[in-house]
């Protein structure tokens, strides 16, 4: 598989081309990066992209609470996580930083409040 991506690690924004094997998760060839950090970014993006998920959860009794993952989760799990979060409810007295859903989908990442309820 071949992919072109723009490095977002620094403002230079190098366009990096990566050729990788989807089954063995091996990078076969990479061009366009100007430094190590770019190389690492491009490798992770192709092999195991991760994202911070931010959304809202209903507060018991009404209202919305902004929440986020405390560690990035695998990108392909974003929609599954949304389903779990959309079924959940946060307590009325939730405080910024409180864990609302622990270890979501076994990712090791918690859904935490990003504001006071």
């Amino acid at each position, binding site marked *: 598989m071949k992919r072109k991506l723009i490095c977002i690690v620094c*403002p230079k924004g190098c366009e990096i081309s990566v050729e990788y094997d989807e089954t063995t998760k091996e990078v076969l060839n990479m061009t366009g990066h100007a430094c190590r950090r770019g190389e690492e970014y491009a490798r992770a993006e192709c092999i195991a992209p991760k*994202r911070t998920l931010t959304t809202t959860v209903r507060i018991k009794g009404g209202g919305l609470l902004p929440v986020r993952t405390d560690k990035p989760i695998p990108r392909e799990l974003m929609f599954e996580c949304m389903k779990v979060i959309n079924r959940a409810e946060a307590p009325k007295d939730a405080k910024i930083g409180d864990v609302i859903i622990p270890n979501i989908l076994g990712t090791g990442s918690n859904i935490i409040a*990003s504001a006071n309820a």
Partner: protein
Amino acid sequence: MSDITASKRALVIIGAGPAGMSAAVAAYDHGIRDILIIERDNAPGGILRQCIHNGFGLHTFKEELTGPEFAYRFEEQVRERGIEIKLNTMVLDITPDRMVTAINEKEGVFTIEAGAIILAMGCRERSKGALNIPGTRPAGVFTAGTAQKYVNMQGYMPGKEVVILGSGDIGLIMARRMTLEGAVVKAVCEIMPYSNGLTRNIEQCLNDFNIPPLLSHTVVKLHGRERLTGVTIAEVDAQRRPIESTKKFIQCDTLLLSVGLIPENELSKSADVVLDRMTGGAEVDEFRQTSTEGIFACGNVLHVHDLADFAADEGAIAGRAVVDYLTGNLKQQKRIRVLTDGRVRYTVPQYITSGKDVTLYYRVSNIFRNATVGIYEGERKLLERRKIKLAPGEMETITLPASLIASIVGDTIRIGLEEDK
């Protein structure tokens, strides 16, 4: 019941967004205690309250926060210092001699005589009226920020099938947000041949969800009577005119406009503050003092910031300077105007008045690669910096050291940009 005798305050700050709160904290920490922040909303935080996505604070706190978390840090600093915020209170008018008239439910209309004022009212979004899209005027057309408020604060989805006009960051963020909540974003049309959004947002908000960014495209017609049923889009030529043969209908029930922000300066005008046509905000010196003495400005009301961190930094500059102003220590020996060459579209500040190091914030008018940005007095070079890439969407800085400022003999300098041959 309006109050006839005005009360007095040393410093009145209008707006409790990151810029206003950061200004209050800086003013307090430099010795002023009599500070009042006036905020029309029911909570402090400004626009950040609805920006629930991450990407804030990397510069200020060295960690990646969401908008509400970033705002909360400043809220805590304001609270720890016991600085007064009047919420649910809207400033109606300010005068050149710093009389602030405001209104709220409890006190009615009241006037405060301020020793100094800091303007921190933020900005508003350009909307459809300003755009002139022909066709019907059905429901279903929102600015991206309005949609953001609906989804993130009221839990209401504006629609199911979405087209976004403009590739500003708010539009990109909303493309992702609405997709995650189950909507289908069919296209993001950008009239320019490049996106104004941060690369990171293009990657993570569009590419992650296979949403096509259509560059050099615009919406030429709206369809639908009561509710939007679709839009006609077209590619544009180099003069940004739609090309007839490329017209295409896209079915959708929602159009989001993300076509830019304008500093909110109605109040500033009533205080005779001179505005810069390029920024839409006040003309200021390095202390962020406007053309009206004792009135300062910071954050998005001064010029649109993509990073809340920079808006807060600017608040701190204004807050500190106000203390010097109120104690008679604001030393202004000269007034050097900073001119721009057009490729550099604007700078803030526009004036340099003291002998200290001054950082100029600037934006460029196009995408430039391998360029030299320089500051000159006549033909004399003061300073040059190499840039690998410059884009209109990213604010840049260049610092003019005190020693060079001291060497300026006239009253204008020029900032310009030259691409490598």
